């Protein structure tokens, strides 16, 4: 068997492991509010996450990936295919090792940022510091601060609005039913825009921003009123619990979207470098972008699904027991803030992690006095590892690159 085939097999294993990690940890993070608020059972959450992640990866996920993820490293480095092969392999292995280490030590790190760091490390060692796009790297640093803060503000304001207009009122159920078209409509508006702007399938439709806004608005109005009529039929009237029940249904909708988007976007983290290796082995050259075959997307989706059902299930189970104070209105606020932040950040070209946004969302509810107790101390620990992730995976990637250069 030629040496390249061994590299490809090795790439498959590491790519699958990366996907597995995303399923085991990142999906559990994004499904936390919906499981914590008891909007769905753990079994339902796993089912939703598995199905929608695979569907998202295969049908919505990008079929073309950037060779150097997030454009951190200049494409000048791509002139030597052998170097790119070693680089992609060492970057993927470095990110996997860092994520593996973080999982073992229970450290909160972002898979996206691990790949970004590893690519930076490979770029520095292969082409020197000048090859790094420092502006892009600065955007990553900015995202650590902007995404949680923005999400915090959105969830804080949204929860205060729900509190003021619905929960604190005597007839909370009637008011929540009356206002449900607004909340459903706003959620659908964000979801449609996210789909059109953020997912590769939406991007392929090439719809203008103004048209996208009009489409999203019309769809939002339709779903808002249709949703209200369905809720009228299915939700039993009871004051406080009835209001929460209405938000339970809206929250399930946002959770489904998060799972679908995660499959569509995050699978590229695991599969992107693998697609580069695959392309190099099959064609012997590589450009600024490489095609991602459907079977690779399915491979990544299955990896995520395995992670969810093998380990994510356990995480969600613990979560369901631990997060007892999160109601549907609070959970909805967190989900909505997360989705909005991710949409806006990606429109601004900032590489944000869904987890970072969700953490900010929970903090916002805490500041709005919506949760009985939130540990803000964790945020310092989380920030530390956000900051550490890029240099740590970069250093690991550099070492691995040098090692693999000698071996291959």
């Amino acid at each position, binding site marked *: 068997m030629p040496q390249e085939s061994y590299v490809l097999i090795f790439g498959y294993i590491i790519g699958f492991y990366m996907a597995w990690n995303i399923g085991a940890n990142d999906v559990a*993070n994004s499904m*936390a509010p919906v499981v914590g608020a008891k909007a769905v059972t753990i079994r339902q959450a796993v089912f939703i996450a598995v199905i929608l992640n695979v569907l998202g990866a295969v049908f919505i996920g990008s079929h073309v990936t950037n060779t150097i993820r997030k454009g951190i490293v200049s494409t000048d480095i791509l002139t030597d295919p052998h170097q790119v092969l070693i680089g992609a392999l060492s970057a993927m292995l470095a990110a996997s090792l860092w994520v593996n280490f973080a999982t073992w030590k229970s450290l*909160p790190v972002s898979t996206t940022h691990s790949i970004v760091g590893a690519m930076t490390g490979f770029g520095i060692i292969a082409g020197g510091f000048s090859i790094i796009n420092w502006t892009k790297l600065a955007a990553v640093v900015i995202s650590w601060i902007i995404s949680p803060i923005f999400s915090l503000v959105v969830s804080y304001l949204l929860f205060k609005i729900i509190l003021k207009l619905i929960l604190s009122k005597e007839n909370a159920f009637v008011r929540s039913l009356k206002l449900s078209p607004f909340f459903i409509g706003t959620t659908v508006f964000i979801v449609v825009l996210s789909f059109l702007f953020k997912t590769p399938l939406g991007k392929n439709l090439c719809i203008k921003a103004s048209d996208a806004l009009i489409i999203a608005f019309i769809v939002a109005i339709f779903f808002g009123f249709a949703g209200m009529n369905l809720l009228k039929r299915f939700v039993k009237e009871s004051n406080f619990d009835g209001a929460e029940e209405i938000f339970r249904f809206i929250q399930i909708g946002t959770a489904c979207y998060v799972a679908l988007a995660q499959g569509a976007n995050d699978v590229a983290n695991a599969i992107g470098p693998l697609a580069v290796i695959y392309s190099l082995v099959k064609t012997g050259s590589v450009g600024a972008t490489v095609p991602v075959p459907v079977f690779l997307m399915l491979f990544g989706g299955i990896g995520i699904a395995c992670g969810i059902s093998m380990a994510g299930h356990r*995480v969600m189970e613990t979560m369901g027991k631990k997060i007892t104070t999160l*109601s549907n209105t609070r959970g909805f606020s967190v989900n909505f803030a997360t989705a909005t932040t991710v949409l806006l950040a990606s429109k601004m070209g900032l590489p944000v992690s869904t*987890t970072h946004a969700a953490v900010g969302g*929970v903090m916002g509810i805490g500041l709005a*006095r919506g949760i009985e*107790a*939130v540990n803000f101390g964790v945020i310092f620990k989380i920030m530390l590892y956000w900051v550490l992730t890029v240099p740590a995976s970069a250093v690991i990637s550099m070492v691995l690159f040098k090692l693999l250069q000698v071996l291959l």
Partner: protein
Amino acid sequence: MRVPIFEMFMTSPFEGLQEHAEKVKECAWAFQQAMECHFSPKCKTFEEFRQEIIQIESQADVIKRRIRGHIPKETMMPISNFLVFRYLREQDGVIDAVEDTLDWISYRSTKKTPQELKKDFALLVDSVIDPIEVLSTMVAQAREYFKTYSEDQRVVVKDIIRKLRRQEHEADRFEDIIKKKVFNMDTDAVSIFHLIRLAETIGFIADHAQNAGDMMRAMLSR
């Protein structure tokens, strides 16, 4: 597993406060039985009830320590840590005062309460039973308030606090009547000291319950 959101959620101190309030409520029945036993010439089970209270008090202490030890400085709650700790201290003061009352009686268990004071002591005991029991309802209703911040729910909690104040006032009145009667009794100084202190210790139960109510009122302030 690295689940940052998971780490942000912590066990709510309100759950602990509720559990502690249930322990306080649990001791109301045993306390009433012990006092009735003390006033009855035939009853021999006072010590059993006292031991039951000691056991409940130590269980409540475990809950108290658990709450105190599990609120890191960075915890964000609908109310400040300081108020939670102050409230807990007062709620715990109720159960401590119940235990102190039975301990005080046990130091002079052979001497029974004079016949002419039995009715007044019974009234005093009755006036502190309700405040002991109402604390768990107050905590449960306050938790409901923090879910919705509804004005109606706030009024429900404020009514309980008002009721606690009235009951404390009532207990003070019975305590004063007993003190007056004791100081005008023709008996030895040790008995007078024992009876006065007994009335005061029973009164402390209502005092602590009212203080807990005041702390709760501070928690409700916007």
